[in-house]
């Protein structure tokens, strides 16, 4: 049996304690703040990740996967962090260190601190299931709340995307669609309802979003995207585009504009039982024209009579798009850049093919040949 003092002294003798200067010399070190949430709220060391002591064992491998990474642990005074350093050594970390004097000395010695922005109690409750995920947490949720996502289309793909983006707390959602809600939409376009039949889809979607999450600022554009209005709409400032258009001319307009402006596009398309999803991240991965340089001639695009779509398919594909959009907005995970995901609802199979950036791409290639918008002739591709 030993007293707390004895245990602390023995633990400190076993672990590495470093002062602020030595800690800052540890190159590539991960800084972990193990204090309680209320202590973190009052300020922390810039760049530190908050992993409360009580969750340290369960969460640390999610935060610092490589156990050879040096880890600097700190608490208020350097005692809790000493025990934490011992725990990390037991978990197999090569180089855990406890910051002597903790945050109190850091601050007293004039160390830089960050005062975190925080969520209101209402938002903390609404987004609690996000906050519980270490990869998102409060920081990720704040990024979502700050993000601005533009949806092309409030139809099959736009319906689930708008609802899930709104539910996730994406702060500003723009929606472009010129259409009116009709009965044939209700088989799959779940943002609309009997109550909004005959009203513009953008208004109907806005109503559904507001009913779900009034935090979201919805900007509606009841118009068809063309070379005439695209710059005006994009000038409103968007971090990300979710493309759920229903025709080739719009797809190519969105692509060309997004490459020129450097806006990532989460692409989704559907036909009958099949869906395609990918992320076009300008200059980091391929663009739509790297995949398909030109639209097919109108006579070869599927005709309206041949069209049709399984109602749940846009739900699946639009949700996959939303997953990519949330990851991009929160800055987590591996987005579908350079990978085209193919889904077949009939066989319930996913396939993935690689898409490479083409040096001869007419828009994002080394010597672009397309430098202004092209209005392709409209043809039916539903």
């Amino acid at each position: 049996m030993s007293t707390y003092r004895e245990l602390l002294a023995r633990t400190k003798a076993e672990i590495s304690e470093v002062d602020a200067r030595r800690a800052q010399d540890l190159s590539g070190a991960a800084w972990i703040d193990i204090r309680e949430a209320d202590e973190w709220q009052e300020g922390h060391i810039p760049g530190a990740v908050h992993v409360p002591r009580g969750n340290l064992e369960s969460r640390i491998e999610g935060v610092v996967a490589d156990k050879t990474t040096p880890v600097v642990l700190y608490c208020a005074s350097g005692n809790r962090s000493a025990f934490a350093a011992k725990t990390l050594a037991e978990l197999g970390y090569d180089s855990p260190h406890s910051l002597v004097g903790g945050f109190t000395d850091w601050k007293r010695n004039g160390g830089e601190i960050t005062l975190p922005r925080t969520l209101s109690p209402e938002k903390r409750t609404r987004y609690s299931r996000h906050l519980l995920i270490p990869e998102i947490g409060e920081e990720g949720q704040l990024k979502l709340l700050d993000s601005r996502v533009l949806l092309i289309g409030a139809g099959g793909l736009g319906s689930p995307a708008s609802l899930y983006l709104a539910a996730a707390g994406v702060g500003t959602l723009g929606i472009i669609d010129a259409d009116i809600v009709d009965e044939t939409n209700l088989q799959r376009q779940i943002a609309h309802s009997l109550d909004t039949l005959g009203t513009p889809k953008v208004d109907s979607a806005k109503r559904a979003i507001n009913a779900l999450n009034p935090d979201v600022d919805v900007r509606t554009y009841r118009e068809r995207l063309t070379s005439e209005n695209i710059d005006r709409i994009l000038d409103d400032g968007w971090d990300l585009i979710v493309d759920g258009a229903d025709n080739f001319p719009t797809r190519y307009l969105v692509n060309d504009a997004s490459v020129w402006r450097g806006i990532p596009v989460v692409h989704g398309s559907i036909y009958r039982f099949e869906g395609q999803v990918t992320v076009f991240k300008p200059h980091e991965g391929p663009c739509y024209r790297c995949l398909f340089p030109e639209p097919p001639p109108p006579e070869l695009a599927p005709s309206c009579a041949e069209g049709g779509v399984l109602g749940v398919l846009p739900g699946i594909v639009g949700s996959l798009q939303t997953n990519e959009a949330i990851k991009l907005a929160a800055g987590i995970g591996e987005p579908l850049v350079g990978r085209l995901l193919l889904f077949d609802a009939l066989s319930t199979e996913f396939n993935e093919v690689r898409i490479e950036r083409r040096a001869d791409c007419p828009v994002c290639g080394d010597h672009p040949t397309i430098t202004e918008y092209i209005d392709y002739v409209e043809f039916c591709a539903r």
Partner: protein
Amino acid sequence: MREVDATGSTVRELLEDLVSRIPALGSRVYGEGEIQPFVNVYVDGEDVRTREGLETVVRDTSTVILLPAMAGGR
């Protein structure tokens, strides 16, 4: 994604076999000895245009995907 069987040891042989049995694929996928520009052909997940094109070798176990451009979102 409908699955069909086709024979051939290269993409060209495979497409010619397919078109001989399903002539409508000629204009939509493979016409006049070329893969249509609005269609991509993948062998085991790789675009054949980034490999040996129509001469890309297809093994017995290969999966070949013919992917048309698709714009629907409604």
